[in-house]
Structures are given as C-alpha cells and as structure tokens.
C-alpha cells in the first residue's frame, strides 16, 4: 500500500567526516507518514524534524552514534548508527504509545497514566458502555460504577423527557434547593471534550459517538475543577476521526419498551364497590329516606353494571409499546495532516405512554489539522430536539373506577363518568379519556449548536501549549395547549376557557481556556508533570413567556384564535448571567514510578458570589505508592498492580442561582401616585454568602493480581460539607421570609468497591469470563444546623407525607415518624409508642423519632460477562439492602382515604387487610372516611430489592464473514433493561408516568 520511495545514501569523504541519514518515518498502525517527528542525535542538540511527507535528512558524524526519533503520543525509537547501516534508516516505524491509549485518566484538563495517578477515578470505554445498555451514556454508567447514582423517580417513572437527578458519592447539599433555585445542587459537573456542558446535552448525546467516560470522584482528581467539583466530575470524550481512506460506519439501536405496571395493585369493580359500601358511600347520614333511596339506586346501578361484566382496566389506556430507534452514521478519514469526521445521529425515543416522544437529530463535523508542531482541532455539532408529552397524567387513569365504562353506548367518550344530579352535593368524576381525546398538547422543540476549537502547540516533546474556546448556543421553545373543552374550564367564563402557554428559552455560553502542559522524566527516575492555565466562562440565559386564553373551539388551536390574555397575567421575563474566571495549576511527581505525589490548586471567581466573597481557593494533595514497583516485589509476578493512594482537598459547589449575592428591586407595579413611580425590594441578597465547600478525604487501593485475573478497587471516603448553603426560613421581622445563607454542615462517610474476577482469562484466544461485583455504602449526618431549619421541620410535621427532618446528628435520608405498636386488636385503634417508650392511643407529633433510613446499608451490582470468540453474554443485577421506605401507597391508598379520595380507585389492601370485628389481627385500621391516619412507623418498610438491570447478548462477526458480506466489520447486540424486579415492599411506582422495561437490538456496521 505504501511504497517507500526514499532512498538512502551516504557520502563518505576523507575531508568531511559526516554522513547524511535520509529516510521516512511512518506510523506502525496505518503506514502513514508522520509529520513533525523530532529526529535528534542523542546527547546533542543537533537534530531536525520530519517534513510534510514524513521525510528527514540528518547530518551525523562519521562515527558510531545514536539517533532518537520522538513524537508526542508515540514510543521513542532509538537507533544506533554503526557507520555501515545507513540504509536501515530509510524506513523508521513508530508505534503509538500503548500506555497513552490504554490506561490513561482523562480529566478534561490533563491526562495522566492511571498507574501514576493518585485520585479515585474510573474510566469506561465505549465497548463497556455499550455492552450494558444502549439508551444513553449515563444509564450505562449507573450499571458500571456503584458511586454513580441515577435517582429513580417514583413520580416521573421512565418519562424520556424528564431529566434524572444524578449524584456521585451522595448528596452534598440540603434538599429544597432545587425547588428554590431550579438547579440541582447535587448534580456533578459534566465535561464533554474538555468543555463544561449540561446534563441534557449528555442525555441527548448518541452513545455511538462516545469514545470514553471517566468519573472523577475524590479531591485529587476533581480539584482541578475547583469550585464546581464537589459533586464529582463526569468527563466524556467523543471519538476522534481515524486516519485512513474514507470509512463509513453505521450504528443502529432498535428498542421496544413496555410499561411495567406490576406495582399497581388496584381493585377490580366488585372489590371497589364493596369497599365503597363498607366505607359508607351509599349510606346517608342525615337519615333522609329520599336521599337513602337515591344512594341505594346509585349502588344498584353500579352493581348491575358489574353484573353485566363491567370491570374496566383503565391502566391499559394511556400506555403503548414504545418503539425506539436510533441511528448514527459516521464518515471519517484523512491522512496525517488533516483528518475529518462527519456524523449524523438520529434518535427517536417513544415512551411507554401515548404522545410521549423525544426526537433528536444531531449533526457533527470533526476536523483535525496538524502541521509541524501545531495542531488545530474543531468539533462542531448541531442539534435539533422535538419533544411531546402526554397531557393527561397516568395517575388520572389509576384513579378511575373500574365499574365505569370507558365508552358510552354509541362508542363515544363521555366527559364525565359520573355527574351528580342537580342539587346533589357530590363530586363529578371526569373521564380521563375525555381530556386525552381533546386537542391538547404539550410540546417542546430546541435547536442549538456547539463549536469547540482547540489549538495545540507542541513546543517540545515535554512542553505543550493549548488554547481552547467553546461556544454553545441553545434555543428552546415550549408550548402547551389545553382545549376549551378540558374539564379544568368547567367553571370558567366563556372567554376564559382554554389555555395556551408559550415559553422561549435562549441560552448562550462560552468558555475559554489557555494552558501549558509539561511532562518529563528526569534522570530516568523523577517523573514530573505540570499543568497551569487560565479559564473563563460566561453563561447567559433568558426566558420569555406568556399565556393566552379564551379559545372557543377544540379543533382550531392556533394562538391567534385566543380571545386575550388571562386577567391579571403579565408576560414573564427572566434572565440570568453567570460568569466565572479561574486560574489553575496541577503538578504531579513520581519517583521511580513508585512514590507518587499530586497537587492541585485553583483560584475561582464567580459572579454568583458576593463582592465580600468573590474569590475562592481550591486545593488538593494526593499521594500514592506503587508497591508492585518496589524492588522487593521484583520477583513477584502475582501482583501486576498493587497501589495504595490517599487524597485530601476542598472542592466547592457553585450550582446556585445567579443573583443570590445582591439585593434587587422592582417597581411597585400595582400603583403609582402624585410623586410618580415607586420601587421596593424584590429579593434580598447576601453579599457575605460563603461558597459551599466540601472537604474530601479518600483512601483507596487498586489491585490486579493472579495473572490479571482479579482486579480490585477499594475506596473509603469522608466528606465534610461546611458551610452548607441553604435557603432558610426566617422570622418575618427580618423583612423577608427566607434568605439564602450558610448554615451548619453535613458529614458523609462511605466506602465503595469494585471487584472483577476472571476465572477464565485467555485474551489471546478471545475467551474471557468475568464476574464483577461492586458495592457502595454511605452514611450522612447534619451538624451545627441548630434551629435553622425549624420551619422546614414544622411544615414537614404538619404535612401529610413529609418524613424528612433537619436536626443535628440526623441523617438527610432518615425517615422520621412516630413509632407504632400496630393496631389494637380489641379496639381497632392505632397504638403509638411515645418518646419515653410508653404506649398511647393519642398521636403526638413530638414523639417523632428516626424509624428508618432511605439510604440502603449497601447497594451495588453483581454481574457476569462471557466473551467467547465473537460472542458475548452479560448479565447485571442491582441489589439494595438495608434501607427503608415510607410506603406512601399504603399511607394514601389504603388508609387516609377521605371523602374525596374514595371516588378514586384504590389499592386492594384497602379492602382486604383492614381491621374489623371479624379481622382483628389486621395490619390496617378499619375502613373509615373521616379518620385521619398519621405518619407512623407502621408505614415504614424494609426496602430490599434485586433488579435485573441489564441482560445482553452480542456477537461480533468474524472478519471472514464480514469480508464475504463486503463490509469491514459487523456486530449485533441484544440488551434488555429492568427485566425483573424483586422487592420486599409493594409500593406504587411511576405515579405520573409508568416505568418501562426495554429490549434493544443494536447493530454496528463498518464499511
């Protein structure tokens, strides 16, 4: 393929005792010439670099000497010149540095060999990610790393359009901040190709574009991100185009999702009617005989319907099998000087509820241009997003009673399943199908682009200069429409029916960074790495919105058909501008690859923080000891890696609102007077607000032994967030009812481990059997918060469901409730245990104690994978043990069914497990519509579970077959997610949107 034209020659002369070596340097991988390779006479400063064709000419003394070929990212080639072997210099083959490609920790700012890195991190390659799932990077990461948690949302289930809450090593911030500020203060930092990005971008990113993902967990690895790093960092690198002739690849995922309704335990029509009868729905309390006759008739009507076989299963109505397909086409190629990649990704995710879709279209162009010591690379991606949400929540179907028919006699949809007669004081029951069949919609669309440009100057082999600039523009548009015939507008005036809302979000952000990187091995023992740089970023976000009302028609829904704006409504406009500027340095020193020392320092300034506290220092120190490199371990071939490491540092958190530091004012608006307009305080700022910072300690060990068959990582960590930043309710006399301030601290202690055992390990034959096990456990508590959260505690005590409390020494995940001794068989009343241990029938909220903790004692995954030639099989199970849950289904759908809730369908246990004269040992109180059940330990249950998170089978077609099919390579894979779920507690999950089980077929072809 590559013909070496270079002819080497040398001229010897008696007078001139020099020779000229000529040749070409090529890449071992693909035979392409390498440009800019330094060719040096060893031990001198005499040398040259290869030109555009990879050729060089070097004058050497007519004597024995050594020539060193070096190139960034490649292993040095040292070749001895014997005065007679000049011809052998005509073709020099260099191979890419194996370590550079394999065990490297990519922090987004610098790269470091895993072996000499002192931080706690985990890196996963695209194959590993794809092997466990194909929906998105984060979903896979959750299966691979125990410290990375994607919170399951009982409320939103598997709604593809709701962004999950994500945590690395638990929470560092007080609950309630997300509600207050809209940003999740526990969310890790996401870095995509060296630039900060959003969770949504990562969720939308087509997995097939990803090259690797690195999770940075402890201070030593995250501190380089300073004040944004206390929640951990997820670094994602997309694939860079490969050299060579134009190569086209296609990757496709085809998935089928089905709603998982197994957690619903609703009554059938007969049961529901019986329950209502027992609850006294059909008994008139006023002793009015006419009223009693009406109720009897009503019951008989319903009974008749049941006898006719009416037992409607409403839950099947809003769900559908969701067919998801995603495609990615990537064309790449080029030679050494210029490389290009052009990709197109299409994603069409159909949720398990009707009208629940998410379509993404993404185009990207990657260009790399390299000349001599300079490299320019640019990644441009453009994305479109189209989102549809159902307008009737799943809960409304779960509420519908089974003794109603879906359709009327004419197969039409009635607006009401039951509408009380004139003068009857009863609630009408709306038909969920009515609102669903109307012309309502809830859509969003977005368009954005990101352009990231990187300039690199390889000053010398050791020294590199890099400048980056990234620009992201994202415009989103959200529109909702409720038809005028929607039941919500039953009581509205003619001109107030129907509602249209439009929200526009415009966001522009840019980030720039200049850095110098240095790395050199001195005296073959002292490895020194250093990075220093400056970074600035700017994020500007504007939100515009308005609503319109007064639609007269269901069908014609353009906003122009609206009658006007809702009375008293004004346009929304919100803006936030956040800026940050930082200076950072990182240094690493390794002595003989044995003793490791890393340090980081970063000075951050951010506009969110007050003038009194604008700048903040972040530092970290990490040390490590590669025991396996010690001389005394030299003869040991049992351990191929035995490293202990430790780190300490204080990364911070700035996921907070833009203008919390200073006071803002607004016009009175509602009135002016003879003096003109007036202005009053809008929000009180706190200029002395201190940055939330987390002191992070970590000790860990990495082990690989028994011929690489066992791989272990262990970490123990201790985090202390001090001060916490929280929105505190204040006495009204302060002039504001809440204020953002620093209050107290939170301590977290935890450990995590990942173990991989390969009972069969024959990589050369392509046969590997792995068993993996990972586990994590953490415990948190508050300290020094005193009475700051008294108001939150009070509102939690009085609310029906709140079981979280804020007390010193208390855990953020503790469940607080009054202990219950169960239902007294004699009376059917609940017997409570007071704080002092005595029993009482009287509920006193002040007897609350910790009755459980939602944080499991241990949680993780066990999995196994088998590679046999081209075939791979994998299976990952998630286990959770030792946690508790407050079973809100029991609390709200078994007891606490009031006069209004009784019209909703309920959990079967509300009928069967209730106390009565005949069922004295029941777990639940007798059926009553007026009795309020208080939060007690009776509803707190052990939450142990085993979930079949990911099963997969894959096959990589052998080259022979692929060639026959005239393609480069081909693989197929079948992945099943959330296949089964065994739990110790039965609680309704997916209230507004059900959970899904998914099977995906993935296909990858390279032409």
């Amino acid at each position, binding site marked *: 393929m590559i013909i070496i034209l270079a002819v080497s020659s040398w001229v010897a002369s008696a007078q001139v005792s020099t020779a000229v070596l000529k040749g070409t340097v090529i890449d071992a991988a693909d035979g392409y010439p390498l440009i800019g390779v330094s060719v040096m006479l060893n031990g001198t400063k005499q040398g040259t670099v290869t030109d555009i064709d990879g050729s060089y000419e070097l004058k050497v003394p007519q004597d024995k000497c050594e020539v060193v070929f070096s190139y960034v990212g490649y292993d040095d080639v040292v070749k001895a010149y014997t005065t007679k072997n000049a011809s052998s210099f005509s073709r020099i083959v260099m191979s890419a540095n194996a370590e550079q490609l394999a065990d490297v920790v990519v922090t987004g700012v610098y790269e470091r060999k895993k072996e000499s890195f002192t931080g706690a991190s985990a890196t996963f390659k695209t194959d590993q990610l794809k092997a466990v799932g194909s929906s998105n990077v984060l979903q896979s990461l959750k299966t691979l790393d125990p410290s990375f948690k994607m919170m399951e949302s009982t409320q939103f289930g598997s709604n593809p359009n709701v962004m999950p809450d994500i945590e690395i090593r638990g929470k560092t911030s007080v609950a309630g901040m997300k509600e207050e500020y809209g940003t999740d203060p526990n969310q890790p930092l996401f870095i995509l190709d060296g630039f900060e990005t959003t969770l949504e971008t990562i969720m939308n990113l087509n997995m097939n574009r990803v090259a690797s993902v690195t999770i940075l967990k402890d201070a030593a690895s995250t501190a380089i991100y300073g004040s944004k790093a206390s929640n951990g960092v997820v670094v994602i690198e997309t694939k860079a185009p490969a050299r060579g002739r134009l190569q086209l690849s296609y990757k496709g995922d085809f998935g089928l999702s089905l709603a998982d309704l197994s957690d619903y335990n609703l009554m059938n029509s007969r049961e529901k009617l019986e329950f209502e009868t027992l609850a006294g729905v059909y008994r008139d309390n006023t002793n009015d005989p006419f009223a009693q006759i009406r109720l009897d008739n009503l019951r008989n009507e319903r009974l008749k319907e049941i006898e006719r076989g009416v037992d409607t299963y409403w839950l099947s109505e809003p769900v559908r099998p969701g067919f998801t397909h995603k495609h990615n086409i990537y064309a790449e190629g080029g030679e050494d000087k210029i490389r290009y990649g052009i990709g197109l990704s299409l994603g069409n995710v159909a949720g398990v509820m009707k009208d629940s879709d998410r379509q993404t279209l993404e185009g990207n162009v990657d260009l790399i241009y390299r000349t001599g010591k300079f490299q320019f690379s640019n990644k441009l991606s453009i994305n479109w997003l189209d989102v549809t949400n159902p307008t009737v929540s799943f809960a409304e179907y779960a509420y519908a009673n089974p003794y109603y028919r879906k359709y009327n006699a004419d197969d039409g949809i009635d607006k009401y399943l039951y509408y009380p007669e004139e003068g009857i004081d009863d609630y009408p029951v709306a038909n969920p199908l009515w609102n669903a069949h109307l012309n309502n919609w809830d859509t969003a669309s977005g368009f954005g682009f990101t352009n990231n440009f990187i300039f690199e100057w390889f*000053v*010398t082999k*050791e*020294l590199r*200069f890099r400048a980056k600039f990234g620009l992201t523009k994202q415009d989103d548009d959200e529109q909702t429409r409720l038809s005028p015939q929607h039941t919500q507008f039953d009581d509205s005036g003619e001109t107030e029916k129907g509602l249209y809302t439009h929200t526009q979000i415009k966001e522009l952000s840019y980030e720039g960074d*200049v850095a*110098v990187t*240095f790395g050199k091995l001195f005296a073959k023992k002292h490895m020194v790495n250093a990075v*220093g740089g*400056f970074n*600035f970023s700017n994020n500007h976000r504007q939100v515009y919105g308005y609503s319109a009302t007064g639609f007269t028609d269901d069908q014609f829904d353009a906003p122009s058909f609206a009658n006007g704006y809702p009375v008293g409504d004004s346009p929304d*406009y*919100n*803006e936030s*501008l956040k*800026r*940050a*500027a930082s*200076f950072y340095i990182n240094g690493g020193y390794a002595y003989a690859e044995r003793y490791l020392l890393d340090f980081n320092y970063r*000075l951050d*300034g*951010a*506009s969110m923080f007050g*003038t009194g506290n*604008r700048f903040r220092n972040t530092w970290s120190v990490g040390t490590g000891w590669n025991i396996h490199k010690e001389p005394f371990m030299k003869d040991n071939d049992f351990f191929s890696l035995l490293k202990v490491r430790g780190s300490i540092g204080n990364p911070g958190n700035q996921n907070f609102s833009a*203008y919390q530091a*200073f006071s*803002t*004012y*607004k016009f*009175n608006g509602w*009135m*002016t*007077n*003879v*003096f*003109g*307009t*007036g*202005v*009053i*305080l*809008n929000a*009180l700022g*706190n200029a*002395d607000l201190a940055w939330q910072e987390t002191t992070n300690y970590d000790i860990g060990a990495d082990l690989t032994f028994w011929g690489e068959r066992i791989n272990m990582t262990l970490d123990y960590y201790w985090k202390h967030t001090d001060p916490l930043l929280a929105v505190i309710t*204040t*006495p*009204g*006399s*302060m*002039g*504001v*009812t809440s*204020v953002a*301030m620093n209050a107290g601290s939170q301590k977290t202690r935890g450990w995590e481990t990942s173990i991989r055992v390969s009972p069969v390990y024959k990589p050369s034959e392509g046969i590997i059997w792995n068993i993996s096990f990972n586990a994590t456990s953490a415990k948190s508590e508050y300290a020094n918060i005193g*009475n700051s959260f*008294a*108001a939150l505690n*009070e509102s939690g005590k009085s609310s029906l469901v709140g079981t979280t409390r804020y007390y010193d020494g208390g855990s953020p995940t503790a469940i607080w409730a009054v202990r219950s001794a169960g239902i007294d068989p004699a009376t059917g009343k609940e017997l409570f245990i007071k704080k002092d241990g005595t029993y009482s029938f009287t509920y006193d909220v002040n007897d609350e104690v910790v009755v459980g903790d939602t944080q499991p004692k241990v949680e993780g995954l066990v999995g196994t994978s088998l590679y046999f030639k081209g075939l791979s099989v994998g299976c990952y199970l998630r286990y959770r043990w030792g946690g508790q849950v407050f079973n809100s289904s029991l609390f709200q759908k078994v007891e606490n069914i009031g006069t209004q809730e009784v019209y909703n369908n309920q959990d079967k246990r509300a009928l069967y497990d209730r106390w009565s004269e005949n069922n004295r040992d029941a777990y639940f109180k007798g059926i009553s519509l007026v009795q309020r059940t208080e939060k007690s330990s009776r509803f707190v249950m052990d939450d142990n579970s085993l979930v079949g998170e990911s099963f997969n089978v894959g096959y990589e077609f052998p080259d022979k077959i692929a060639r026959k099919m005239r393609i480069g390579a081909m693989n197929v894979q079948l992945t099943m997610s959330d296949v089964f779920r065994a739990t110790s507690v039965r609680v309704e999950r997916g209230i507004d949107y059900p959970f899904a089980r998914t099977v995906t077929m993935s296909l990858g072809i390279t032409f």
Partner: protein
Amino acid sequence: MKRIFAYMIAAALLTLTSCDAWLNVKPYDKMSEEELLSTEAGFIKLLNGIYIELNSDMLYGAALSVEMVEIMGGAYVIGTDNSVWGNYADLAAYKYQTDYWRARLNETWNKAYALILNCNLLLENLEKTTVKFSGDNYRVIKGEALALRAMLHFDMLRLFGPVYSQNPDAVAIPYYKKYSVTPNALLMASEVAAEVIRDLNEARILLANDPVRTSGTMTSAPADGSSTFMYYRNLRLNYYAVTALLARTGLYFGDREAAYDYSTEVIQASSDGIFPFVDKNLVIGSPDDPDRIFSSEVIFALSHSQRNKLFKGYYDPSRIPNYVFRMDNDLMNNIVYGGGATTGGHQDDYRYRVNWVATGANRYFYKYSDMVDAGSIQNTMIPMIRLGEMYLIAAESRSADIAAGVGFVNQLRSNRGVGNLSALTKELLQYEYIREMYGEGQLFFMYKRMYSPVIVSSTASKNPSPSNAVFVLPLPSSETDN
C-alpha cells in the same frame, strides 16, 4: 520554558485583577441596588415605593385602617352568619388563634417589617452614598425614612406589644435599625418605645427645614411641571406629621408632657393656617359633594389610587346581602350622635351630617366615598393622623386630671358645629375619638392605651372588658419558632 511559565503566571495575575470587574454582573430583568441607588432619583423612587406599599391591604390599605384593627376596636356590628361574615365573627370575639387570623396577622407583620427593611436599606445606602442631593433633599429623605421606620414599629408594638400602661417591660417586638441576615432579639416594650422616640426625634431634626413649615401642604403639582417631590407635604411624613406622631407616641408611652408639647405645637401650626380646620362651606355648604375626610386637617395621609375600594369593599350598603361595616344603631343613637348633653352626641355634628347616610333603618358610613371630581387628591387620601387627634391628645395630656382638657375638646367641637361639653370625662373623650376617627384604625389602640372596655354598644355590659386576651395579639409563629 521557565520564561513561558513566568509569562503565564504574570498574564494570569493580570487577568485575575481585571476579572473582578468582569465578574461584577448586573441583572437586566431586575434593578440591582447598586444601579438603583446611584442617583438621587433612585432614592426618591425607593422612598416613594415604601409610601405606596403602605397602601397594601395587609397594612393601611385595609387591615390597619378600616378592616381588621377597626373590628378589634369594636367599630362595627358583626353578625354571626358564617356565609356572610366569614371569619370576622372570630375576630370580633378576639379569637386571634384561628388559622385564618394567624395567617392574616402574620401577613400584616411580615409586610410591615418588609417595609422596615426597605427603610433600612434606604437609610444604609444613604449613609454611604456619594450621590449629591439637590437642596435639602438628603435630610428630607432621611428624615422621612426614619419616621416611616418608627411609625411602622410603633404600630406593630401597638398591635403585638403589651398594654403599655400595665406592663411596659414585657417582651414585645424586635426593632430593626439596619439590614441583617440574622434575626434581632425581641425587645421590651419600653426599649422599643425609646427607639421609636429616638428615630422620631432624629427625623424631626432632619425635617426642620421642611417647606411645610413655611409654605403649607402645597396640595397641587408645581405649575412648571417640575418634580413634585417637595409638594403634597400632607402625603408625606412631614415635619408636623412627625411632631404629631411624637404627640401620639408620647401619650401612648405615658409621657404626658411630651404629648402636650407636641400636640399643641401642631395645634399652633393649625392656627397659623398650615392645617386649618375644614371650611364649613366645603362640608355642609356643599351637601352633594362634601369634603368628607376634612382633607385640610389631615396632617399625614396615604395616597391610594383606588381608595374607592375601601368604600365599595366594606361600607357600601349595596354590598347587601354580603357584609357591610356600620355602627351599632343603639350606639349611634344613644351615644355617638345622640344623647345630647350627657354624651355630647348631636345629629347636627358635621361628622354625622357628611359621613353617615341612612338607607332603610340603618345608617351607613360614607367617609371613604369619592368626591364628584374624580381626579381630586381627596379621593385618594387615607388619613393616617389628623388635627382632631391633636386636640384630643392635648386635652388628655394637659394635666393629670382629664377634666382640665375640656377646652381643647370644645375648640374641636366648635369646629364640628356642636356645642360645648360642660366637663370632660374619659368616656366623653372616647366618644369624641369615635366621632373624629371612625374608620381610621385608631380606636382599638385608644382602648388598649386606656385599658378600658371596647365600646361596641350603648349597653355597657356588652362591651368587652379590658384584658390581655383582647388587647395583646399573639406574635406570628415565624417569630417564636425561628
């Protein structure tokens, strides 16, 4: 290489120092304090904003003028029918602990202190500002802001504090003199009193050159269209308003001499023509369009652009079948505007003739009904302190013996078209208070100050006896919990 590092570090340091300015971000959709208070106009707008907010329903726009506090002062007949009277029956029975009234009191409290915070932010910025103020504006702005802060604290003390004459050292309310992110402690009533007096005294000194002292209230805009800031002085806490507040606070805190000195100073100003008694012709000379609030006598009023809501929302007889606030018929007939010499009540009293209109068997209260000229400033005024009160204060404080003050009461009465009282008693003085300041939110405080029964009826046994349960409102739970 070392050089490059040195350059890098130098560059980084340079950029970081210029960074601070770059990091100083100002919001566009809100006004930042720095921007707003960078001009004199900004301070004036903020001060005016506070005055405007006093018109809120939670404060003097309803709760502390015609509604909540006036019900507590026994001014209205309150029925028991829940569908008509809602929660008012609870309040008339002084059940402050119901969820509804706790929430309402909480709102009032929060709003008052929110405005105090605004005053404090204004004052603190005034303290450190480099803005050049024109004329006497700096002193006037500062004086008015101090007076507003004192007035709001004083009214919170009158509501939530102890009966001062009984228990001046009881723990009452906090007094906020500057913006703070940590709560201030509750002070004893007497400590609050000292702070109120201190602020008012300072305000009075700052307002010494108030144009009201020379040019009067100037209740029309300058003809040349220039700033109205120094006009309409009766709509601001002017020098005499502060003096009148000092008279009011002096009496409340038992400082009889101060009360007498300050009230007579205002009375003197009135005789000098600054707050003259209302022209008889504007009252009874124009029966179709009387000046019902006696606007010339109002020393300080709020200006509420929809003041008509007060009449329409609470007193308008066409509100029937909903609730309408009005006086008990027997109380009116036997005492307030009846009873002749024994009570001082006569139906030719101007205050009866312009403010009470009979519809059916009842008479309804028209003080807040609009004048014909829709644009008149009178239609926006909610009186906060008036000349009549100065006469009553002077009467009560002239001597320890209330009888000595009869002359002041008679002077007032002669300007109301009714004859002299032969002697003055506490009860007769109270009746005069009812006539003069009905619907202005002062009656409850008068009974609380005197620790006497709340007059709701002409039958003494029906009048609630003085007690802490009646007079001392519970502090909002946000104060006690946090």
